[in-house]
């Protein structure tokens, strides 16, 4: 079947079968290698994408479920100012994530701040359960996300002036 959807802001189509995972289609048909497909059961978080604005593990989404929807991968998100807030905010807080989890932590932080501009530590830890990795102390990640939230709100405030 041929499905059409919006991928990182562009209208695209793909010929898929029901057996195809969304993560595989994104990697193999569209060359979006920031989307990994490691655990294939939705646990590792390396395949996180925004599907109609919601963060989902694309390895447990069949490609057909993308029909008519909008998908943003880390490649698309990296072109936004919010992405810079997150990477710079993490850097300022002295948090260096590893190659395993950096994209997923960025996507999880982005999803959280979109709906919760001032998240509590509990909300941050809950959100980052979608991007599990032991490379960084959870307390440090909480502080880093709070720093990102601060940086982002300042930028949005200055833009509004």
């Amino acid at each position, binding site marked *: 079947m041929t499905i059409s959807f919006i991928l990182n802001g562009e209208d695209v189509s793909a010929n898929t*079968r029901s*057996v*195809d*995972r969304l993560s*595989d289609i994104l990697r193999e048909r569209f060359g979006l290698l920031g989307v990994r497909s490691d655990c294939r*059961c939705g646990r590792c978080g390396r395949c996180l994408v925004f599907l109609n604005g919601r963060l989902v*593990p694309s390895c447990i989404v069949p490609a057909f479920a993308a029909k008519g929807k909008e998908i943003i991968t880390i490649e698309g998100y990296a072109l936004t100012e919010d992405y810079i807030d997150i990477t710079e905010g993490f850097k300022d807080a002295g948090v260096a994530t590893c190659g395993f989890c950096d994209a997923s932590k960025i996507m*999880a932080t982005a999803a959280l701040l979109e709906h919760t501009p001032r998240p509590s530590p509990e909300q941050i830890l809950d959100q980052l*359960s979608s991007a599990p990795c032991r490379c960084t102390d959870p307390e440090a990640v909480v502080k880093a996300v709070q720093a990102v939230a601060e940086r982002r709100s300042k930028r949005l405030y200055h833009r509004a002036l």
Partner: protein
Amino acid sequence: MRSSNVHFPKDLAEALDVLHRQPGILIFAGGTDILREQGGRGIALPEDVLYVRDLPELRRAGLTERFLEIGAAVTVSELLELGNAALPPLLSETAYGIGSSAIRNLATVGGNIACRSRFMDLWPVLACLDALVELRDQGGATWMNVNRLVSENGKPAFPEGGLLTRVRVPIEHWDAYLVRKVGLSDYPAPETALFSFAARAEKGILVELRIAFAGELAIRSQALESGIIGRSLPLSQRECAQFAESYRELASALSEGLALQFVALVGGAFELLAR
């Protein structure tokens, strides 16, 4: 691996028409339960699949004076977004404990209830709340108590041939409640289950009591609950121990580990009524 025919109905009437013509078709919404155990390269699905995730009739949720009504394709995240003012605490605590936040964005309320391989986390809570589910086919709608979705041997018994469209949760006040996940895994496994308890008192008398426990098997005894309702509160320590003991026989269907935890949780729940 063979590819399936995926049907994308535009509305409920079309979905029911497909279901009528192909009663054995796989109904697919979030797909988390179907895909979580398929770690291979491709996804194995039956020959025909009915994709209902985007049906507008199944995506609504709201509050009336007497009920919380949830469309079957509402995700667990969307359910939580209704807020604590709309959700019974038992339900919000349970929903918050389901998977990671990204899984909750995919998993639907209907999928959690209609799972046939085991009881998922929402069942014991909805059983405690005496929730109803609406099953639709071309002949019309049937409302069924969640407690009836269990076979005689305690296994899931979701009816074949109908489409789960809505869940209706009565709005009631509870004076005491407890919900606990049992087992070490965050994901459904043989030794995971969920315990749910709710009680209400009026003028120092226990007027409502509900206890449900479910994992691979479901446990709820309205006969035992009826035997305890009507007692004066607070319960004495002796009564707490006696009532907890009365649940031990029910637990014999469970594995030893789950049975021990179930009886301990029943005891803990009655302790709440002893204060």
